[in-house]
């Protein structure tokens, strides 16, 4: 019988030790880290231009400069709101597993993960509430869980966490380095990127080990479900970036039709590839996507 204790190989254990030490030595007080100015400067760009959903699309020409800047603001509020809702969900999954049988090896880092994610949720929410006056509502609904083996269930849960963090990190690293953005925006993206590099390294080890075991112990159906789930979760994560709430708040008429046009624009395919490049490369490296192509 497979137990989680036998899934976590030396590579996982070494990564947990290294990342736990790094989390301890790089610990900071997020509540005292940021300067929160009264406002984001008038006329500022809130999101890097190549990350705004209309980038490269025909629909971008429909927007005047004021609408475009407003869209960059509300898409950034959408992005940080997605972070808040996503973090809440992933924390629940980790809380259910910390200090339970089978998770003895990853548990030391789970403590840092939970602590840091709680802090990330705080500063993302703080940004939205201070400068946007609100969080966008969570558009996810909890559906009855499909009955999976514990192994497949863990693979799906830690894949969700990893994919979410990798996609977010694409935005964070870009915006942290973008001199066109106000310092407040660059700072929260920079700090998040620093912590997430540890979380992504940790998550990649867990998913790699779970996939190795699933490939040897899982049946064909489970492997097909795992592959389909990852593909669909990536697609779903990209769709969340196209927010009707953001289009509406930016004053764009008929936001549903606008969203459909932007999503269908041929230029978005390359943009999606850029956002998911790291995730695609990871799942190719461990063999999940290669097998799909075979």
């Amino acid at each position: 019988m497979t137990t989680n204790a036998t899934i976590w190989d030396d590579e996982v254990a070494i990564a947990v030790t290294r990342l736990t030490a790094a989390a301890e030595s790089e610990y900071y007080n997020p509540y005292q880290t940021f300067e929160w100015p009264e406002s984001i400067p008038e006329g500022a760009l809130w999101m890097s231009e190549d990350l705004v959903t209309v980038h490269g699309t025909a629909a971008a020409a429909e927007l005047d400069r004021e609408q475009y800047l407003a869209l960059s603001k509300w898409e950034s509020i959408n992005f940080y709101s997605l972070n808040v809702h996503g973090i809440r969900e992933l924390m629940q999954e980790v809380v259910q597993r910390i200090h339970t049988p089978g998770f003895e090896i990853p548990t030391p880092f789970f403590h840092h993960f939970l602590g840091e994610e709680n802090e990330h949720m705080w500063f993302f929410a703080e940004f939205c509430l201070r400068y946007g006056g609100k969080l966008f509502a969570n558009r996810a609904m909890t559906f009855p869980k499909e009955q999976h083996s514990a192994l497949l269930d863990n693979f799906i849960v830690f894949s969700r966490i990893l994919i979410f963090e990798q996609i977010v990190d694409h935005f964070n690293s870009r915006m942290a380095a973008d001199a066109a953005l106000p310092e407040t925006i660059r700072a929260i993206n920079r700090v998040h990127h620093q912590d997430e590099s540890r979380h992504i390294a940790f998550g990649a080890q867990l998913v790699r080990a779970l996939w190795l075991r699933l490939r040897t112990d899982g049946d064909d159906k489970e492997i097909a479900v795992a592959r389909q789930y990852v593909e669909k979760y990536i697609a779903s994560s990209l769709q969340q970036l196209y927010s009707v709430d953001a289009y509406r708040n930016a004053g764009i008429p008929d936001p549903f039709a606008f969203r459909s046009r932007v999503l269908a624009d041929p230029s978005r395919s390359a943009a999606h590839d850029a956002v998911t490049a790291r995730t695609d490369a990871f799942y190719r490296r461990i063999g999940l996507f290669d097998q799909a192509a075979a």
Partner: protein
Amino acid sequence: MKRIAEWIQTKNPELDREPSPTEDLIEARLIDSLDFLEFIYLLEDLSGRPIDLQEVSVDDFRTLERIAHRFLRPEAGTTS
């Protein structure tokens, strides 16, 4: 309702018929959590009203009949 049935068929190409009004869409996995954002946007577009997910449950999306009653009646009102 036609657009909703069409959307479900598009998302489930293996389904070679329209779902019946009382078919359990959740149990049959014709709507799942990863498609849900698109589905909510479709309902909001069709009804012209926002849907507050704090005020609904997964059962409100279980059948086409329930969806029509809950979200698409003119008198259904806003849920937010």
